């Protein structure tokens, strides 16, 4: 269970680092655990983010979940905020949605706890 929570905090850390590196001016996060599933909600202010950039982020985050990769590599998440880290996050979550709204980006990540 502790590992499960640590994995979630690592995902939050990684996404926050990524968004802050992209010059976001204000960032709010909510973590909503419900049974074995967890919803992560990120809202960030950023006028410069384009739909194309958002699509690229979502494509990375929506790569198929791979438990084998997650079990081995999850410790890399939240450490560096560089190139491949979003890739690891993508392997650790079940789905990612997002949209641009009034100069803000909204990202919603969903993760189920599995063995």
């Amino acid at each position: 269970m502790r590992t499960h929570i640590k994995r979630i905090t690592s995902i939050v850390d990684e996404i926050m680092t990524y968004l802050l590196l992209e010059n976001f001016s204000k960032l709010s996060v909510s973590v909503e655990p419900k049974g074995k599933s967890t919803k992560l909600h990120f809202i960030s202010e950023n006028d410069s983010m384009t739909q194309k950039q958002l699509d690229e982020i979502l494509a990375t985050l929506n790569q198929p979940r791979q438990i084998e990769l997650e079990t081995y590599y999850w410790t890399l998440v939240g450490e560096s905020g560089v190139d491949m880290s979003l890739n690891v996050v993508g392997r650790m979550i079940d789905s990612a949605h997002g949209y641009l709204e009034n100069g803000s980006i909204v990202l919603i990540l969903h993760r189920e706890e599995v063995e």
Partner: protein
Amino acid sequence: MMEFLTMLKKPLPNRLRVTLLFYFPLICFLGVFIANDPQVLDNFVKIQLSPAILLTDYLEVGGVGATLLNVGLIALMNILLFHYLKLPYTGLMFAAFFTIFGFSFLGMTLVNLIPIYLGGLVYSRFAKIKFRSIIMLSVFAGTLGPVVSHLIFGYGFSGAWAWFLGISIGILMGFFVIPIARHLLKFHDGYNLYNIGFAAGIMGIIFVSVMKSLGYPTVRVALLYQVHDSVILTLMIMSCLYLITVGFFAEAELIKKWKLILPISGRAISDFTEPAGFGATLFNMGIVGLMSTVLVLILGGVVNGFMLAGIYTIIGFGAFGKHPKNIWPIFAGSILSSMVLGLPLSATTTLGSILFATTLVPIAGAYGPFWGIVAGFMHVFVVRQVGDFHGGLNLYNNGFAGGLVAGVLIIIIQTLKGGEK
């Protein structure tokens, strides 16, 4: 055949994709018949009973036929395990499969792998996770096989006691290498692809220190096959051509998709099957395999067990981090340092360092060719010294050296690039 290859253009059921791996044990078994060794079974037993310490080239210990039998059986065992566990087809699976395929020429046997896998199974029960979640780590952990073999056949323990020690310590090693390897990833931040080698190197140092203190020193060996064997060279080239051919027929826009791989840094995790697809990934694996084989031949090396371990590992990681663009600076740097040190470039040990230095390709991919050359250059200096630390009980000695180089070099690079700002 054409129908089968054309069918590959469509998304394949996962199980059918994995069956493509059956080609590799099959060509090994074919090689057993071509080698036509009348003593093949005796030689196979000799390989199983070898202490397996670095560098034990099974082509030298048991000849071509028995070695190919060992490799084929280990490959078959793993493919069946992947099927049984219904593993998804990924770049990591290819990396793991070809790593053990290559090292079955150089230290891995059925005898020493099974206790390590059992350790992984026990860990999965203990941690209450499915075995399939950690099987890839257990496969890579075969690097600790010599610990098992050396306890049973090398230290001089007798009979059942030796077997008890070998199997039980093997299970313990297979158990603990999983959390240790995961933790040590943070040391080099994923810039050393053979991370299990780094973890196993540290575990090996502790194990060897304990054994030495108890009066059981570990003596390294160098049993290397030094014959140009046409069966072995053909096996190598056929493996690469098979991957290139299947890749060619499996992907209609092959070069376009392959170009998607080339900008990827290679840092863990870089699973090429996802952005580039199945065909381009296989094609890349074949290309980096050919590139490595040609390098060995140009430099005048003998394609022996050590070289096969190096080349097949590169082929495997051709699905999980390695491509020509991030490999060449590492090759250049390691060749340069070998020349500075006055090492003969055609020597197996020199070529081994050059091939295995590619564990550091993420540095070239992420920070450019200059730092890739520096990484390759430093790797040769380090790898020549660290093997004695773990007494050759860690087969991925270059993974151990690579972890040390990457962990330090990444900090240097990031500091110079203003990482504190």
